[in-house]
């Protein structure tokens, strides 16, 4: 497949993790006290891989060229709107929806990138932010006929859908892949464990693997090399007689298409869209994911996206009574103290945890979780010099 052995191992590891995610994310038996840490339910698993795609795409721009875009959520949103309109007008099959979402987001990012890339540094960040905020405001106000405004869009029973047959009475339109419904799940009970295998999740995971493969190829290609050259010294690149603009624009459009793909998949999974997914905090979130995981590395953004989405869903579910349960074995005074200390960081306060974690990563671990893994790996290596098997998970891209 044109990959080096190391990259191939990495791809295989990610593929295995994706296939067995329903097992890996469900380590605790049903009904046990730890069951709330299970992430093996379809909705969350889908989000994990979809935002993985989003972050992989963002990393192609930020990780390789160093251009920090604060407006990528706009492309995700535009892709979502394109996908939902395909579902309303053409067919509930997800294939056209996903394809059109990538194309529309690509076109939109071509326009935005063409303008924004005239400037670099902080100006570029502000320009992308301005475009994203504009799209968000327009989606909420003037473009309401297209975007549904505050209510958003869902497929309705009486939409035209020219390729689909007429729905039977009482039937609701559902996203499907040639008849295989996206929300269809197969549940397997083993002892106390219940594992859910969801069609939509596996579709998203396959798309994610393809996206990941393409990103490896881009990282290892001469084109990727050029993008790194832009990051390290654009001026020198200009002096050698090369124009950096086509390369950065290409990277921008590719990452915009990845964002559109993620948006299209989101719609394919839950068939609804609202303007809030274009708000600038959503753009900030993908920045967080990429940095947290490790910008410029292959696997980092996927790890970061998985980590943040997992935490968002799991940590924010913990409430006071669960804490009381956990610390019940301690003497009363210490228990109360611990609960008061921990409580601000969980449940609704999970953004606080995220913010602190993010600051710590930027301050101490600019390479993100991947660099952290590498440091730990090196620590072990020093102890056992004989064992120098390369660890696929922590292989840096640079």
């Amino acid at each position, binding site marked *: 497949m044109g990959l080096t052995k190391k990259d191939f191992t990495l791809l295989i590891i990610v593929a295995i993790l994706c296939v067995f995610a329903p097992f890996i994310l469900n380590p605790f038996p049903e009904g046990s006290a730890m069951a709330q840490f299970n992430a093996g339910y379809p909705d969350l698993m889908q989000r994990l891989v979809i935002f993985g795609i989003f972050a992989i795409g963002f990393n192609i721009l930020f990780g390789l060229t*160093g251009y*920090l875009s604060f407006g990528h959520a706009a492309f995700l949103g535009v892709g979502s709107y394109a996908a939902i309109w395909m579902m309303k007008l053409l067919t509930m099959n997800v294939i056209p929806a996903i394809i059109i979402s990538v194309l529309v987001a690509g076109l939109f990012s071509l326009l935005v990138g063409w*303008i924004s890339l*005239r*400037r*670099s*540094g*902080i*100006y570029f*960040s*502000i*320009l992308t*932010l*301005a*475009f994203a*905020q*504009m799209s968000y*405001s*327009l989606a*909420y*106000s*003037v*473009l309401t006929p297209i975007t549904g405004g505050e209510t958003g869009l869902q497929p309705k029973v009486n939409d035209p859908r020219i390729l689909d047959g007429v729905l039977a009475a009482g039937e609701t339109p559902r996203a499907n892949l040639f008849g295989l419904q996206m929300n269809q799940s197969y549940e397997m009970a083993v002892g106390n464990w219940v594992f859910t295998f969801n069609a939509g999740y596996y579709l998203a995971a396959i798309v994610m693997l393809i996206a990941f493969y393409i990103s490896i190829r881009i990282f290892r290609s001469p084109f990727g090399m050029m993008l790194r050259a832009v990051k390290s010294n*654009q001026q020198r690149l200009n002096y050698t007689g090369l124009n950096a603009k086509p390369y950065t624009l290409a990277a921008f459009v590719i990452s915009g298409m990845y964002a559109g793909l993620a948006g299209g998949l989101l719609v394919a999974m839950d068939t609804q869209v609202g303007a809030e997914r274009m708000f*600038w*905090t959503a753009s*900030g979130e993908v*920045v967080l994911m990429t*940095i947290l995981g490790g910008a410029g590395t292959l696997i980092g953004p996927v790890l970061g996206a998985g980590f943040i989405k997992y935490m968002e869903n799991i940590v924010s579910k913990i409430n006071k009574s669960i804490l009381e349960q956990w610390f019940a074995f301690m003497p009363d005074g210490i228990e109360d103290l611990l609960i008061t200390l921990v409580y*601000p960081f969980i449940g609704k*306060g999970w*953004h*606080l945890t*995220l*913010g*602190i974690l*993010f*600051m710590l990563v*930027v*301050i101490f671990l*600019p390479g993100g979780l991947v660099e952290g893994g590498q440091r730990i790996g090196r620590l072990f290596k020093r102890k056992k010099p004989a064992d120098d098997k390369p660890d696929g998970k922590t292989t840096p891209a640079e």
Partner: protein
Amino acid sequence: MDAIILQILNGLDKGSAYALIALGLTLIFGTLGVVNFAHGALFMIGAFCAVTLSRILTLSHTVIDETQKDFLGNPLKVEVPYIYDIFGQTTGDVIIDWAVPLSILFAIPVMVGIGFAMERGLIKHFYKRPHADQILVTFGLAIVLQEIIKYFYGANPIPTPAPDAFRGSFDFGAMLGFDPNTIIYPYWRLVYFAFAAVIIGAVFAFLQFTTFGMVVRAGMADRETVGLLGINIDKRFTIMFGIAAAVAGLAGVMYTPINSPNYHMGMDFLVLSFVVVVVGGMGSLSGAVLAGFLLGILESFASMAIVLETLPGINQIIIYLVAIIILLTRPRGLMGRKGVMEE
């Protein structure tokens, strides 16, 4: 004509807030070369200083009032603010009524302290790192500050009224010879504008007419040379950070009666303030102030009914649109200096 004057007035208060925040951002950028994404959070903390002070002033204890009886004939329990015990009821009421203006005195030391702590504790370590890292770490800090405020004050906006004396509206129409009631404008917004003008004037005067300001300006132009002359420029820049934090905080304090503060108000203002700074020209103080007022007024003109009829939705995007046009036609911004953040 009266409509135009009204829109200019309407733009002034928002423009004042933009100008004050953008001024602080530019001060920090011009002196320390740091892009501070947490500046909106400082604005928000300032607003919550006002909330805190008005809560402290109304702290009460329960007293049994023998003169009043409830319907059962028992003596009535009344909540008496501690402030009555100290100053008596009339003075106490006045003080509580003037809580927001009084918060200025309370906010200055708090904000300067927070500014010092931020600069010494965090930002100091980021001078040598790329701008992207500075943006990211201050972005993280903004989230943390915002969540801390949310934890203590809740997510809902907290109404904090202006003093009674400023609660009405001023009839400009009658004064300028138009029909009465065509141009009415709340007093507090006038106060806000005047306050912003004073603060901006004070900052400029401080930089222009004091020795300290002269050294700071010299440091902005060429930090290394000033350092070589044996001046501890870092210390002065730290003080400037404190001042910038105080400016943002005061902008927040005085804004509370206009818009009830909530924990994400800073972020809402920050995005626009950055646009303002970029339009004004990175590193140019007068550019930041000019662009702040200009964009504030433009925004209010864009929300006029006539404009909205021809260009629906323009009020939502006008600022961003202007920013894009300016950045593409005048890359340095309105009054940007040569060589600042140009790459």
